[in-house]
């Protein structure tokens, strides 16, 4: 309960700071600058004041207007008068689906590869996966995305189907179609994540495999597989899962490149656009969404830790 209050306070502070920073540095007036004929200053002022973006209004007044809106669930409007809330609601869904898919895939791949690498420590699988990991970490997302696209085209060509799609969320609207669109961008997010996770998992797993309790489990006469899954992997999941849940918040706004390459209109893309057009309210709203998501993942991490590590006093 105390923690919930703390989290709420953190969200308020984070979004307020984001708004203030954006309000001080961004310049929505620039949107009118290049126009011919140049609109009269009074008209521009009025238009900007209308959407609470006028830098000539006192900062405190603007902040209070924004904050009171936020309390009512109103994120304000963009410089051209559109509702920020409605715009983001749609985009948040796009990003959320992508990031969730990427996170789940990345976690599963990373945990599996890391565990296998540790079990086959210093044998071919360990060395191979280590090499692939460093390659993945060295390649920027945009290159990875394009390599995946090339691979997808080859797969489509050789199988003669058009399952893997490279642009947008859907064309026909069917579930399978959506999946076909999701695979490539999700993999683009998942692979670098899996690379990092697999290294974490490999290292904790190596520690755990040498731990006394694993030796005890073997001494009981348990089969190797049971020892590895039930006594080693189960314990090694605790630190890795804590790391994983926190990457969710970071991915949420960090998926810009992927969204752009695959033509998905999500939050990351919107954030860049909003900074360009000086949309203080949009920038602040996206920050708020990210803050909420980050704290939700903190709660999720907490719950997960409790489940994985029962009976432990905190």
């Amino acid at each position, binding site marked *: 309960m105390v923690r919930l209050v703390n989290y709420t306070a953190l969200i308020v502070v984070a979004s307020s700071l984001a708004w203030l920073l954006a309000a001080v540095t961004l310049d929505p007036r620039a949107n009118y600058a290049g126009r011919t004929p140049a609109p009269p200053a009074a008209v521009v002022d009025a238009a900007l004041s209308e959407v609470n973006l006028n830098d000539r209004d006192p900062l405190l007044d603007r902040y209070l207007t924004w904050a009171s809106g936020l309390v009512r669930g109103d994120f304000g409007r963009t410089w051209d008068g559109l509702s920020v809330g409605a715009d983001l609601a749609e985009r948040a869904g796009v990003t959320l689906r992508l990031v969730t898919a990427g996170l789940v895939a990345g976690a599963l791949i990373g945990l599996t590869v890391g565990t296998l690498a540790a079990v086959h420590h210093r044998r071919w699988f360990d060395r191979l996966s280590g090499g692939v990991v460093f390659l993945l970490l060295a390649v920027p997302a945009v290159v990875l995305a394009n390599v995946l696209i090339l691979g997808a085209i080859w797969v489509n060509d050789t199988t003669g189907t058009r399952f893997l799609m490279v642009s947008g969320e859907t064309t026909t609207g069917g579930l399978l179609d959506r999946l076909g669109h999701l695979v490539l961008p999700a993999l683009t997010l998942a692979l670098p994540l899996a690379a990092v996770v697999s290294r974490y998992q490999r290292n904790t797993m190596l520690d755990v495999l040498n*731990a*006394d*309790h*694993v*030796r*005890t*489990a*073997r*001494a*009981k*006469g*348990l*089969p*190797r597989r049971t020892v590895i899954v*039930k*006594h080693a992997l*189960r*314990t090694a999941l*605790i630190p890795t899962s804590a790391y994983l849940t926190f990457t969710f918040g970071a991915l949420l706004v960090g998926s810009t490149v992927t969204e752009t390459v695959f033509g998905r209109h999500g939050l990351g893309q919107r954030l860049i656009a909003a900074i360009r057009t000086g949309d203080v309210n949009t920038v602040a709203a996206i920050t708020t969404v990210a803050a909420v998501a980050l704290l939700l993942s903190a709660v999720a991490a907490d719950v997960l830790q409790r489940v*994985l*590590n*029962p*009976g*432990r006093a905190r």
Partner: protein
Amino acid sequence: MIDVTDLSISFGTTPAVRNLSFSVARGEVLGLIGESGSGKSATALAVMGLLPRTASTTGSIRLDGEELTTASEKRLTALRGRAMAIVFQDPLQAFTPVHRVGAQIAEAIRAHQRVPRKVAARRAVELLDLVGIRDPHQRARSYPHEFSGGMRQRALIAMAIANGPDLLIADEPTTALDVTVRAHVLDVLKTVRRETGAALLLITHDLSVVARAADRVHVLRHGQTVETGTVDEVLRAPREAYTKTLIAAAEAGDRPAAARPVRTVLEVRDLVRHHPGVKAVDGVSFDLRSGETLGLVGESGSGKTTLLMEIMALARPQRGRVTVLGRDTAHLSRRDRRRVRRDLQIVFQDPSASLDPRMTVGAIVAEPLTTHGRSPDRVPELLEQVGLPAAYAARHPVHLSGGQRQRVAIARAIALDPEVLVLDEPVSSLDPTVRAEIVALLEDLRAERGLSYLFVAHDLPLIRRVADRVAVMYRGRIAEIGPAHQVFTAPGHPYTRALLRASALRDDDPTPATGCRFRPRCPLYAELPAAPRSRCVTEEPEISGESGAACHHHPGEAP
């Protein structure tokens, strides 16, 4: 039952065990004794087939006539836990932390017997009951960290005997335990042998454990057999010089009693340190005089370490007063605190943890000197004083043995010519012969420099040898304090008597809120008539004066 012939084990090119042969018959207890590095544990792992892949073995290990060294992993898996079982040292690490204790025991049963879950769970509770865990139904549902050390060790034994093994290996089963709990665990092992008729291979470095529990003994050194025979033969009349050293290192001699010096260097009055939910230190008073050694003993969890940390903090305590060299720590200015730090130094238990692995020995010893603005020129001289060649200054701690590392830690502590040294279990992580050398070094330093020691240890014979006075701590308070010879020969507190006899006391009771805190475990209280008993319930016993026991009924006080 088990026949080991010409067993040799090596890790890479380093031999761990050379040409070891022994056998243990059904119902027999063989004590395998030696210092760390003597190859005891490698032998145990070899029998279980649990040596790491880097190890190579030659020779023969036969269990009930079956050759184990060439057995397949599948066959070994079938034998482990059923025909042969092992109880490991350090029971905290030996259980998987995320599964309930009962479930882990039941898992061992189901690994070898086709029984339903429920039956296995019930059997696990029975086993916990057999090894003397009270309230086994409840306890089976606990997680390992919710158990005390003694309970975990017992649970580990329960798990090892779950399938009635023919051979039970106990690898240092009592090393991590307090004296009173140690006796308990050895009793449990005896019960187990009686109940199952298993052959028991008891691995330890502690001669008293062998003397108490084994039929025959096998002394190992550097992987080779030194001497073997019945316990009586080997311990009463050792033939080999090494066995004699081992026995001598374990024996105690009394310090001569002398009048107390007059100058007080450290005074603690009614010191209190409560953590949330734990009264770690709950009203402790003592004083340490110049040139004196005060031994502080007590079980783990009795508050010894918290007490030391409160003294070393040199800050205002929660309650009570700490006076170091005449200065009250509650009123020290920053400059005074620095000055007092110079005169009050500490040596920790584990030298590999208390020395920065990335610093050279020279840098470690020079650090206190440069911190206090003195010249590091004295480093070679200091190393020499603790018996290390000056050339060691260039080495890193990893390249030193445990005993050498502790010498470095001592050199660091005496670098600033302190008056008081706090020694927190300074030799308990060392092997017996090395231990004797370090103790001798500490004795020499004390005599040469007139140091005063606050010496914490759970090794009672050691304290008896080095301390002038002894304070026995129990759950945050001093149960008894006095001259060493008096405490050891005529103990006033029932707890001190139990400690000295190493008799079994229960270890899982909560501390009562009022009255004498030792009451639930007290053998004296259990026998008292109702009238004198009530005093133990209502009134916390106090020590008056500089010596005495915190007991309402000890001989020195009217009942």
